[in-house]
Structure formats: C-alpha cells, structure tokens
C-alpha cells in the first residue's frame, strides 16, 4: 500500500505495530482530533499511574530522610535507617526475609514437580489441576481465618497428629514455629498459581524431545534434569521471581489475621513492619524508610535471581 508522508502526518496515529508496515487509508476527518487521539486514549492511565504510583515512590524515598513527630518535615539524613537497624523487630523482619529466600526453592519445586506429574498424566490429573488451583483465588484474610480454626491447639491438625501419637504443637503460639507455619499456609494458598503457570510452560515444551528421552529409557529424574528444566528455563525464572515477590508482598493478610506479628514479634516481615509504623505508631517517615529498604530488597533479589538463573540456563 502506498501512502504519502503528508497523509501520514495528518493522521498522526499510524495503525501499525512496530516492525510492520501498513497504510492507514481513509481520509482523516478532524485531523487535529485524530492527531490527539492516542494521547487522549492514554491520558487517564498516565495521569493515574504517575500521580498515584510513580510520584508517591519518589515522595516516599524523600520522606524517609525526614523526621517524625516534632521533627516532622526537617531533614534528618540517614537517622531513620539507623533506627531501623537498631529495631529488633525490623531485624527479625529482615531475618524472616532471609528465611523466605532459603525456602524459595522449595516453594518453586513443589508446584514444578506437581505440574510435571500432571503433564505426564498421572491418574486423576484433570481433577488435581482444578482442585490445587482453588485456594489461590481465596483472599489471604479468608485463608488466615480458616487456618486459625485448623491450627488451633485443639484443632483438626493437632487432632490428626494426636491420632498418630505426635504433638500437639502450638502452631501459632510458639515463636520458633509460628513463622514456618505462616509460610506453610502461604505456600498452601499459592502453589496452585505457580502450578498453572508451569502447566502453561509445559504446553510450549517440545513433546518430541520428551518422547525421544522416554524411548531411550531415561528415568524420570533424568528426564526432569535434562529435558524439562532446560526446556522450561524461562518459565522457571518467571515462577522464581513472582513467587519471591508474592512472599514479600502478599503475606500481609495472613500475618494480620493469624499472628499480628507475634508471638514475641517472631513473624514480622518488612511489609507488616511498614503497616505497623504507619497505621499504629504514626511514624510515617520511619515507615517510608522501611518501605525503601523493602523496595531495595526486591530489586536486589530480583536481579540476583534473574542473573543466577540465566547463568544456570546457559550451562545446560
């Protein structure tokens, strides 16, 4: 299709995707309105995202260098950050982030392994797929409330343990146990999400490769190691990053309902700390500093994961 550069300029908006060429055709009515159309279309989105997401991000970093209370608005340098490092609750929150990073491979391997079995059509795979995914749609608040019942001292889980002569365990009352309990419930509630993502990844896997490996009589662990993991490296990378982000940013509801950070502050995470300082203690500047630390943690963890996984992928 041939078109003049002038016609293109008056339309302003060329109907094409990058890298593809096609004419716009037609005669522009109200050339000015047409030229402005793309900007009008993106305007509400741009306004909202800039005003309520990007601007607050800058504002928050700025906030974190000012004081609270009577020092409100005055610059205090790195005081808030120093105070954070002094606060045992924030240190616990950071230690718990470390725990999350350590447990992350488990939280990825469980849905990965289950997706592999479902993909290999274990008996009942259709049913499993539907059932496993369902807790993922429940709010953390509802999950937390349900598990408050399940994990009560005289609840079903301790009853089941009692039946085989174990326990009872104070799942949410023991400072050494509570964080593991909350993470366990989080994994229970979200592994279906990662499972579905893995299954979507499997659908892009070259089935011929898998068949060839089976014909050669390769065992399942070997197939997983040599065919599935390299073939799904992008999906695995995606699940690692999203699972980590999920652990750092979507456990608030569970913590709020199940432990409120207790017992003895053992279940604090940075996001919960931010909430407490902002919502309960009225320390917005300190909360902003904690937010900024959380953001940095997410950036570092994200970049590290992507680079580590990339390198691992290349070696295969």
């Amino acid at each position, binding site marked *: 299709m041939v078109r003049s550069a002038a016609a293109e300029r008056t339309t302003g*908006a*060329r*109907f*094409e995707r*990058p890298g593809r060429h*096609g004419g*716009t*055709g*037609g*005669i522009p009515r109200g050339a000015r*309105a047409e030229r402005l*159309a*793309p*900007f009008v*279309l*993106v305007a509400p*989105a741009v306004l*909202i*995202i800039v005003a*309520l*997401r990007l*601007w607050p*991000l800058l*504002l*928050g970093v700025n906030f974190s260098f000012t004081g609270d209370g009577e020092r409100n608005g005055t610059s205090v340098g790195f005081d808030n950050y120093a105070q954070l490092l002094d606060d045992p609750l924030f240190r616990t929150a950071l230690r718990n982030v470390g725990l999350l990073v350590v447990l992350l491979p488990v939280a990825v391997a469980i849905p990965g392994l*289950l997706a592999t*079995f479902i993909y290999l059509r*274990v*008996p*009942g795979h259709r049913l*499993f797929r*539907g059932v*496993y*995914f*369902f807790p993922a*749609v*429940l*709010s*953390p*608040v*509802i999950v937390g*409330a*349900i598990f408050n*019942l399940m994990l009560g001292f005289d609840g*079903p889980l301790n*009853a089941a343990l009692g039946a085989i002569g174990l326990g009872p365990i104070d799942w949410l009352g023991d400072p050494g146990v509570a964080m593991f309990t909350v993470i366990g419930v989080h994994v229970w509630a979200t592994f279906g*999400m990662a499972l579905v993502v893995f299954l979507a990844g499997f659908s892009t896997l070259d089935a011929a490769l898998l068949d060839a490996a089976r014909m050669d009589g390769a065992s399942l662990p070997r197939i997983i190691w040599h065919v599935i993991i390299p073939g799904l490296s992008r999906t695995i990378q995606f699940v690692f990053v999203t699972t980590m*982000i999920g652990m*750092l*940013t979507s456990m*608030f509801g569970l913590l*709020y*309902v199940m432990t409120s950070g207790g017992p003895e502050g053992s279940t604090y995470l940075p*996001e919960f700390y931010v909430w407490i300082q*902002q919502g309960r203690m009225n320390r*917005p500047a300190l909360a*902003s500093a904690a*937010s900024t630390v*959380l*953001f940095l943690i997410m950036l570092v963890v994200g970049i590290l994961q992507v680079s580590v996984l990339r390198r691992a992928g290349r070696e295969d």
Partner: protein
Amino acid sequence: MPGKRLGRWMVAVPMALLALATVYPLVFTTNVAMKTRREYILDRFSPTTSLHLENIAAAWNSVGMARYFANSLIVVTASVILLLLFGSMAGFALSQLRFRGSSALFLGCLAALFVPFQVIMVPLARVMADSGLIDTYPGLILAYVAQFLPFTIFLMTSHYRTIPVEIIHAARIDGNSTYGVYRRIMIPLGAPALLSVGILDALFCWNDVLIALLMMPSPEHRTLMVGVTSLRGQYSDNIPQFASGVLIAAIPVLLLYLFLQRQIADGVTAGSTKG
C-alpha cells in the same frame, strides 16, 4: 508394564492426599458453620447432622456483614469498570497506534508493575489525605485503579497486539475515527481478554485487605475482607458463627471459581507466556 503402572499410582496416591489437604480446610469450616455452638463444643469433627443455616443469617445480620458486603460490591464494581475502560484505551493506543513517546510509556507502565503497594503506601496515604480522599469510596476506588492498572494495561496491550492491522485498516476505510475504531473494533474484539482481565481485577480488589485498611479505616466503611478480620474478636466464644462469617466472605469467590476457572487460569498464565 505393571512396574510403570505401579509407579504412576505411587505418585497419584500422595497427590490425591494433597488434593484432600487442599479441600479439607474449607470443608471443615463449612461443616463447623452448620453446627450449633453446643454441637461444636461436643464434637467439632463429625459431619453435621442438621443444617443450621441460622448461623449464616445471624452473621449476615448482626455484625454488619451485609453492610460490608455492599461496600465491597460498590468499590469492586466501580474499580473494575474504570480499570477495564482505562486499560483498554491505553492498551489500544500502545499496541496499535504509534505516537511520540509510546514505547517510553509502555516501559513506564512495566516499571510501575514492579512497584508494590507496600513501597508507596505511606506517601499514597498522605496524598489521599491531602486531597480529602481518605476514607471515601472514590479514594479507595482510585487506589485500586492505580494499583491494578499497570497489570491491566499490560495484558490488554499484549492481547490487542494479536489483532491484525488489516481489520483496523478496513474500519478506517469505512470512515471510522480512532475513537470509532476503539468503540466498534477494539471493544468487541477485546471482549475475551476484557472478561479474563476483569475477573482477575475483581478478585484482586475483592480479596485485598491492606489497601482497604489504609484507605477506608472507619468501621462503617469496612469492606468485606476488613470485616472478616474483625470477626475473630467478636466471635471468639462462638466458633460456628465465626465460621459462618468466613463462609459468607468466601462464597462469591468460590462461585466465581466454579464457573470461570478457565478464564482465571488464562489470565494468570497470560503474564508468563507473553512477558
């Protein structure tokens, strides 16, 4: 091959147990919700013999679950409508129109996708308070739209990229303006994606507790999920009532899941395959 078949069952049995562990907490909660307080204290595990739906009715009427439910419904409906409108408009422009700064905009949108709410919640609360929007419906709705718009735009853009340019050319030749193309082509052809993104947005907003706690703190403005967090204190001595309240909050989502499981899964995976 009997050995191989045995292997498959050795995997299937633990997987079935896991499936049971996935469903059981909800079954237990439902069962408890149907019992009277006395039945619960005597035996909490046995299947209930009578359906005491009055627990549900009591939870609905007495603690204001009805009010919370209405609050959630208002906020979620308005948020999803605005998200789909703004998301499809921006998605159309970013995928099919070329204009100055479009790729920078798309990158900015992706960047916003990775800014979690926890990171901006303190200054956002300040911005909302300064503009008089804290503790109002528009304030919470705006907060939800801002939170989930980058995700919505991202998915709508990747969906609209699959629509062939020729269709749009044809519509232009028929005399449609850019807005006409949006209304007559992009909305109808985007319907499946709008449905799937809309369901996810609705789930996110409905399930949220942190944003609601921060933006609409007063008791009469509680959304359903904030209401659930207050149930435990009120019903610590009446567990069946507590379970009923939880069930009320879970039912809409469970219905959504039963009927629209496919769309939900599609939306979840769209980000991974197109990203």
